[in-house]
C-alpha cells in the first residue's frame, strides 16, 4: 500500500491527531484528569435568552442552519439544540425548530423529544413545533421568515452552517424584537451575525460550545485534542516563517510531501 503523493504528511499528522484524540477521549471517559476547558463567552447568554422568552410568554426559535449531515457545524448544532430544548422544557417555553433537510428533521425532532423526556415532561413535547420547511435554500429562508414574523419568538437561536440567508434571519429576528444568539463557522457569514445579533459564537466557538454544554467525553476529548493540534500548527507556522526568512524551504517541502 502506498500513500498518494502530496498526502504523506497529511496522513501521518492525521494519524497522530487521531491517536491523541482517542487517548484524550479514553481518559475523559474514565474520569481521569484532562485539561480544563474555559467557558465560551456567548454561552452565558443562552439561558438569559430562554429566560427572557419564558418571562415574555413567547416561544424560542432554533434553526440548525442549512448544512447537511456531512457538515460538522450541523452536528455541533445538535448538542446546543439539546441544551436549549432541555432549558425550554424545564420552563415550559415552546421551542420552534425549523429544518431545511428532511433527513435532519427527524434528528432534531428526536433531540427535542429526548430533551422533554429527560426533564420529566414528555407530555409537554409538541411535535408540530419541530418543522420541516423546504430543501431549497430560499424557500426555507422564506418559510422561516414567515414563522418568525407570525410567532414572534422572544429568543432566536441561529446555530449551525448558514449561507446567504444568515442576514435575512438575523434582520427579521431583530425586527420582531428577539434576543439573538448566533453561531456559525462559515467565515463569510460571521460578519452578519456579529453585526445583527446580540451574541455570536464565532467559528470554532460553536464546536467548543457544543462540547462544553453537553459535557460529553467524546466532544470534550475532541476539543482538547483539537486545541493541542492548533498549538502544533501555531508552532509549525512560526518555525516555517522563521525558516523561510532565512531562505530555508525544507519544512515547507516536507509538509507538501
Amino acid at each position, binding site marked *: 500500500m502506498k500513500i498518494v503523493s502530496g498526502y504523506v504528511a497529511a496522513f501521518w499528522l492525521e494519524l497522530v491527531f487521531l491517536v491523541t484524540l482517542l487517548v484524550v477521549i479514553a481518559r475523559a471517559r474514565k474520569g481521569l484528569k484532562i485539561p480544563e476547558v474555559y467557558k465560551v463567552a456567548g454561552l452565558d447568554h443562552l439561558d438569559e435568552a430562554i429566560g427572557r422568552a419564558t418571562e415574555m410568554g413567547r416561544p424560542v426559535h432554533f434553526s440548525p442552519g442549512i448544512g447537511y449531515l456531512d457538515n460538522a457545524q450541523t452536528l455541533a448544532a445538535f448538542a446546543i439544540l439539546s441544551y436549549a430544548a432541555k432549558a425550554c422544557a424545564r420552563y415550559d417555553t415552546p421551542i420552534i425548530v425549523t429544518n431545511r433537510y428532511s433527513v435532519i428533521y427527524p434528528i432534531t425532532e428526536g433531540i427535542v423529544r429526548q430533551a422533554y423526556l429527560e426533564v420529566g415532561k414528555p407530555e409537554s413535547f409538541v411535535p408540530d413545533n419541530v418543522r420541516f420547511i423546504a430543501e*431549497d435554500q430560499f424557500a426555507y429562508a422564506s418559510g422561516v421568515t*414567515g414563522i418568525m414574523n407570525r410567532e414572534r419568538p422572544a429568543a432566536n437561536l441561529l446555530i449551525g452552517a448558514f449561507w446567504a440567508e444568515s442576514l435575512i434571519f438575523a434582520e427579521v429576528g431583530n425586527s420582531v424584537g428577539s434576543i439573538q444568539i448566533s453561531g456559525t463557522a462559515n467565515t463569510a457569514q460571521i460578519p452578519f451575525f456579529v*453585526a445583527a445579533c446580540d451574541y455570536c459564537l464565532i*467559528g470554532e466557538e460553536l464546536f*467548543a460550545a457544543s462540547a462544553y454544554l453537553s459535557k460529553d467525553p467524546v466532544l470534550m476529548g475532541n476539543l482538547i485534542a483539537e486545541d493541542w493540534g492548533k498549538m502544533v*500548527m501555531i508552532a509549525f507556522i512560526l518555525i516555517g516563517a522563521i525558516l523561510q526568512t532565512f531562505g530555508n524551504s525544507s519544512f*515547507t517541502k516536507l*509538509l507538501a510531501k
Partner: protein
Amino acid sequence: MSTNPWVWIQAFLTLALFSIIFVDNGFYKFAEHAYVGLYAGYTVVVTWFSYIRPSSQWIFRDHKYHYIIPIIIGLLIYTRYIKGWAWVSRYNMAFMVGVGAGFVLARDFKSLLLDQVRATFKPLFVSGSLLTTINNIVLVVGVVSVMWYFLFTVEKKGTAGTISSIGRVVMMVAFGSAFGNTVMARVSLFLGRLQFLLGDWLKLIQ
C-alpha cells in the same frame, strides 16, 4: 408595460415578497406559501425521477439485487412511526452521521488545514520590499493570533490575553471588510430586481 403574463406574475411575487419590509400581510403569506409549496412539489418529482424510479428499475428490471441493501437502510427511518420499533431508525441516522463525519475528516484535513498552514510560511523580512515584509508580518501575526484566540484550554490572561485580543481585532477587521463586500453584492441583487420591475415590467427604463 409588459403584456407578458409571466412577467406580471414575477412582478407580483417580487412585490409581495418585498412587502414584508413594511408589515406581515396576506400577499407575503401567499408568496411565501406558494414558494415553499412549489418547492415541496418539485422535490417530490425530483426524488421520484432521480432516486426512487431508477433504483427500483435497477432492482426489478436490471436484477441488481444488491441495491436493495441501501433501500432497506433508508426504509428503516420509517420505523420511528411504529411504536416499540422507533429505536431502529437511530441506526439509519447513526450510519449517515458516521459517513458524513468520516467523509469530512478525510476531505478537509489536507485542503482546509495543512495547505492553509503551509501557505502561511512567509519570510518575515524580504530584502528590498518593505511592503511585502509588512504584508507577511501582518499575515503571520494575524493567523497566529487568531488561532490563539480559538484555544479553549488556555486561560486568556496576561500575555495570552493580549495575543487573544490581537486575534479578535484581526478578525473584526476581516469581518468588516467581508461585511462591506457582501452588502455591495446584495445591493447589486436589489438593483437587479429594480431593473426587472422598472424595465421588463413597467418599461420605464431600457
